[in-house]
């Protein structure tokens, strides 16, 4: 019984203990709830905002991310935010110039919150404003023109240089591919391929227009065209710079075959291995059939014909490194009548060119080495009636640079180049049965060494300044030049301002060098240029305007009698405008308008006269419209007439009648107008293949643009020499596989 009682007592005690515990637990919960509830009814979040040093932050916006309920802190950093929200929420403090501070809180709450605002570090977002004078052709996101756009530019015949002419800067001097940039001469534009010099000597006024070297656009990754303001890395160029960068190894194998009136081509891209890829391209062209169908504005004999073979092989040497070998071989020839000042003069030219470029780049670390070794050659034979001219150039070019880029704020680049140019010029004459007579034969070699140092600094998040200096010395001149250069880009949103100033030198080609003439120095040509510009917008819609001023000294030029004149002066100033716009979802358009005033000392008389590049206005308007698989491009080009020297009378010398020239470049050709339209239609044909049918209707309105003038035998009658091509339809097909 006792035991029973004891057990009962213990049981009761235990029961009481459990009940007490339950009671205490319930009481505790009630107390806790009551305590919690005391702060809730107000629905107020209180706190203060501080700076990292403990001082109150300046007035700051405080808001609840979930509801956007917001208030502002006072000058002591204190705030009280009212909200009816319940549950977990994000409280944010935000002020311009500071990183937003955010904290998760559970509402309602009765404790004060402290938020700390940290000043925003200078952000280094990508500056999208392009350097003064620079335009890019390629596949990059800031590209001005893609390789396909180059190929589709009506009237450009897939020629990079001709597509470049549709950008601001070059003047429409004639229908050739030569680049007269911002009032400069065609010989003052230097073409580089993977940093190596691609020879493009354009000496005399070619009867079909000035020409420059070019490469198949689909072998190129991008082409950067600088109408001025280029960095210290690039030397020996006075007016313009074309930097072609070859395409990398293909990721997948593909190919295409093209056939059209007067042209056939094969291209292949082979992904041989994970690290090795090859690209190859071969073309043959003969414009005879095209001329036979559509006629000719000039009597061709023979019509332009030629072929080229080019390719790259690349080995991926590391995570961000590659070794690439590029090779090019090209031959062409043509002949044309009415080529000289007097009627009936015939001209013929055969040109051969080759180039081999081995380059290495590595950007895996903060040290960015780049090395290029190249060998290129150029061989041209020209005949003008009984005169035969030979030009043979060979250049070996070694370019090296080392970049140091520790972060996005600063980068430094140092490097140099070594260039050996061998030049051979010859002139012979053969009249009747008489043996060929040598007029001249000159061999000259010139070594040029150059070095540069360039620093790019992001002074503020919106401002980038590039300063550099380069020094060059060529054995043929014996003069060391020092070129300081500086350029700046400032960007705010989509608005950008640019400026550049620099001194540039170029050694005139050895053909100007007369070693026997010891009376005058063969100093390098020099220009001092200043550029300011403004840009607005982005890739597809945007506007660029640039103003420039250039002062030339030590210019070397040819006189009409093939004599040379040095130490000339010149001046060019003008404006370039580039507008890109989308007219609709499927229609894009771009307009380039170049205005220039360019004058130089006349090589014959020494008087100040308009330069050949003094084409006051050059306008290109290109429009692309896509209709599903059909793409239609139109081009309208206009230029005010270029200057020429008129013949105002004759004089006799013995029994020969010679012309008397008027004011140097005192007259102008009629304005140039040309309209072209091209279309391409893409059609998959199964089996992973596709067909592109394309056509190019050039010179749509069959306008006879005057290229220059010729005179009859006694120089009394002036006759226009028209642009070589009539309206012509150039059509073909490309098979993609």
């Amino acid at each position, binding site marked *: 019984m006792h035991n*029973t009682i004891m057990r009962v007592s213990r*049981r009761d005690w235990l029961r009481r203990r*459990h009940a007490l515990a339950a009671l205490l637990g319930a009481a505790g919960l009630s107390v806790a709830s009551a305590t919690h509830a005391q702060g809730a009814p107000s629905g107020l979040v209180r706190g203060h905002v501080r700076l990292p040093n403990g001082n109150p932050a300046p007035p700051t916006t405080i808001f609840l*991310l979930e509801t*956007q309920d917001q208030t502002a802190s006072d000058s002591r950093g204190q705030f009280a935010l009212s909200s009816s929200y319940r549950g*977990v929420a*994000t409280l*944010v403090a*935000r002020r311009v110039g500071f*990183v*937003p501070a*955010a*904290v*998760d809180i559970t509402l309602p709450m009765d404790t004060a919150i402290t938020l700390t605002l940290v000043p925003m570090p200078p952000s280094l977002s990508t500056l999208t404003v392009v350097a003064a004078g620079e335009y890019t052709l390629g*596949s990059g*996101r800031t590209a001005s023109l*893609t*390789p*396909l*756009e180059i190929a*589709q530019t009506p009237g450009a015949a897939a020629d990079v240089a001709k597509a470049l002419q549709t950008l601001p800067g070059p003047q429409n001097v004639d229908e050739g591919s030569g680049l007269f940039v911002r009032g400069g001469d065609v010989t003052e534009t230097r073409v580089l391929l993977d940093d190596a010099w691609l020879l493009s000597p354009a000496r005399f006024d070619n009867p079909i227009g000035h020409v420059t070297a070019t490469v198949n656009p689909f072998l190129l990754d991008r082409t950067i065209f600088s109408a001025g303001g280029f960095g210290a890395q690039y030397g020996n160029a006075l007016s313009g710079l074309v930097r072609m960068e070859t395409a990398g190894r293909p*990721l*997948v194998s*593909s190919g295409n075959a093209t056939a059209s009136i007067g042209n056939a081509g094969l291209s292949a891209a082979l992904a041989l291995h994970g690290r090795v890829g090859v690209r190859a391209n071969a073309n043959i062209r003969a414009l005879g059939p095209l001329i036979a169908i559509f006629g000719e504005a000039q009597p061709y004999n023979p019509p332009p014909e030629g072929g080229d073979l080019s390719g790259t092989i690349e080995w991926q040497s590391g995570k961000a490194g590659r070794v690439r070998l590029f090779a090019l071989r090209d031959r062409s020839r043509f002949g044309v009548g009415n080529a000289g000042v007097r009627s009936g003069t015939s001209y013929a030219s055969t040109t051969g060119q080759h180039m081999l470029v081995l380059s290495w780049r590595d950007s895996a670390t903060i040290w960015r080495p780049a090395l290029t070794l190249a060998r290129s050659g150029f061989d041209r034979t020209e005949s003008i009636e009984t005169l035969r001219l030979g030009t043979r150039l060979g250049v070996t070019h070694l370019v090296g640079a080392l970049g140091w880029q520790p972060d996005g704020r600063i980068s430094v680049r140092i490097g140099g180049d070594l260039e050996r140019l061998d030049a051979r010029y010859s002139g012979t004459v053969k009249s009747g049965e008489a043996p060929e007579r040598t007029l001249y034969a000159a061999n000259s070699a010139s070594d040029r060494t150059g070095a540069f140092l360039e620093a790019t600094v992001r002074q503020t998040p919106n401002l980038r300044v590039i300063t550099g200096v380069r020094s060059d010395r060529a054995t043929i001149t014996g003069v060391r030049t020092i070129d300081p250069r500086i350029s700046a880009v400032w960007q705010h949103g989509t608005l950008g301002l640019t400026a550049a100033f620099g001194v540039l030198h170029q050694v005139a080609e050895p053909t100007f060098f007369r070693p026997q003439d010891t009376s005058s120095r063969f100093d390098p040509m020099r220009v001092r240029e200043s550029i300011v510009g403004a840009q607005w917008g982005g890739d597809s819609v945007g506007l660029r305007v640039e103003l420039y001023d250039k002062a030339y000294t030590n210019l070397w030029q040819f006189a009409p009698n093939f004599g040379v004149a040095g130490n000339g002066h010149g001046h060019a100033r003008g404006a370039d405008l580039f507008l890109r716009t989308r007219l*609709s*979802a499927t229609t894009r358009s771009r307009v380039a308008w170049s205005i220039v005033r360019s004058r130089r000392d006349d090589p014959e008389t020494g008087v100040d006269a308009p330069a050949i590049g003094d084409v006051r206005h050059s306008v290109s308007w290109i429009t*692309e419209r*896509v209709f*599903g*698989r059909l*793409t239609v491009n139109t081009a309208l080009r206009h230029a005010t007439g270029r200057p020429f020297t008129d013949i105002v009378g004759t004089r006799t010398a013995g029994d020969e009648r010679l012309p008397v020239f008027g004011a140097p470049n005192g007259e102008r050709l009629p304005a140039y107008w040309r309209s072209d339209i091209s279309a*391409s239609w*893409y059609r*998959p044909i199964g089996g*992973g*293949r*596709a067909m*592109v049918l394309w056509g190019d209707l050039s010179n749509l309105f069959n306008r006879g643009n005057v290229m220059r003038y010729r005179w009859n035998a006694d120089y009394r009658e002036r006759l226009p020499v028209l642009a070589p091509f009539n309206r012509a339809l150039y059509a073909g097909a490309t098979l*993609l*596989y």
Partner: protein
Amino acid sequence: MPAQRFSTECIRRIVYSTMLLACITLQPLQAQSTPAPLTGAARWADSAHVQIERAMLAYDTAALARVGTMLDRALSAFSNDPLLLHYRAYGLYRESMLREGDGELSAAKERTLRSAIDLLERSAAARPLAETQALLSSCLGVLAGTGMVNGMRYGNAASTAGAEARALGPNNPRVALLAGIGAWFTPSMWGGGKDKGYALVQQAIGAFANDQPSPPLPSWGAAEAYAWLGQMEKSRGNMSAARAAYDRALALAPEYRWVRDQLRPALGAAR
């Protein structure tokens, strides 16, 4: 009776002790098995992920737009958070895929894709994620597939982003899935092809078996993989396999409207 009382007392003691023990032990155990609650940007990213997935399955463009607004708000507080940027872009990608007339590239669709590309590039710069590169490749690939001009403009960039995605996540099912969808619509001469697409989607389905990303990392795509597999099987003439794939997609996501209302009914009932 005492025996019964004793037994009742014993049971009561056992129950009380068990409850006490449970109170002491369960909380730490639970703490071990449940991940810590997400906070800050991660909480918003996870919420966005769930809501985008729900909107995508329900074919609800209005809901997608609402998630976009929510993410824009979150980005005002966590401006450069890579996951918020990623999900904002992911939402835009889904929005562009749900747009009408996806065969043609409308101006609005192109704008949406360009915005997504911009956000993905920002996200990738802050935190390289396989899914970010895969989405970037897909967005660029869609633009590249809308004509020859765009093909030249975006094709290489799409391939590069795809290669980067594979390097970052060789066994990531979403990388394989997006690559598979892209390959399915890409001609073999440009590195795609039907067979390649089919193989990649199958690879993705295999990889989903071991896919356990912790929130708020991307975890979408399992049901979608079966939806695409179904279409590929149908295209190959394997109707029963297509039906099984759609059924599997609906088992994973019963509210998947695209499969439930369009793809599956189009096949008809099993014979």
